[in-house]
């Protein structure tokens, strides 16, 4: 299991476009991916789930990867977040 913490730097937070891209990236992996915002936890491969976290600039998200390709998933998602959020 791997955990990634990331603070949103984008002014607009996690709106439709980055949410869609995040889910699209996450869905490529076999491992289980859960995303948390404080106490709220959602399925990382669900668009509605990810958008419902309503992550804004300055919020810290935690992503938990659990499964065979968790290393690769972690690296891919980390790179994606740095570039887009």
């Amino acid at each position: 299991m791997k955990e990634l913490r990331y603070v949103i730097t984008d002014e607009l937070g996690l709106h439709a476009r980055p949410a869609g891209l995040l889910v699209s990236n996450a869905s490529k992996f076999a491992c289980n991916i859960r995303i948390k915002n404080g106490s709220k936890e959602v399925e990382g491969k669900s668009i509605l789930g990810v958008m419902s976290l309503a992550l804004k600039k300055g919020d810290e998200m935690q992503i938990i990867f659990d499964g065979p390709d968790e290393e690769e998933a972690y690296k891919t998602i980390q790179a994606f977040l740095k570039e887009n959020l």
Partner: protein
Amino acid sequence: MLKKLKEMFGKNTENEMVILSPIQGEVCDITKVNDPTFSDKLLGEGVAIRPENGRVVAPVDGTIAMMFETKHACTIVSDQGAEILIHVGLDTVNLKGEFYTAHVKDGDKVKAGDLLLEFDMDKIKEAGYDIISPVVICNSATFAKIETYTGMRVQELEKIIRIEK
């Protein structure tokens, strides 16, 4: 007789569900929208509606999953399990709520036709935004088939999408 009436009004059957138009206007092909998030179907299958007025009503009986804080979009889960995103205008997250009024909130139960939000079409256009509004089925991948009905003007609650489970 009842079954025939249900078919006429596009009610849902066991394997099929119908999504009605939340907005009055012209139903366009989503691949023609000027935003790859929608035209590339990143968020799912759907249509885009060019509004004729500033009203958005519930396209299904269901529950509001989320009314965006910026009120430019909302997600709703139909009682049959379709997850629908209605996004009023492109890039309108940048308006940060200006020109939008929400009438429902997260968790509200709604019936098709209930007013979800209102928006000032003219002011949004004046501010330089494209008002075309995608209506997307976010869990498209879980369904066998999604059919869209584009190329015509619709009133609120006319059929725009048909989903086969």
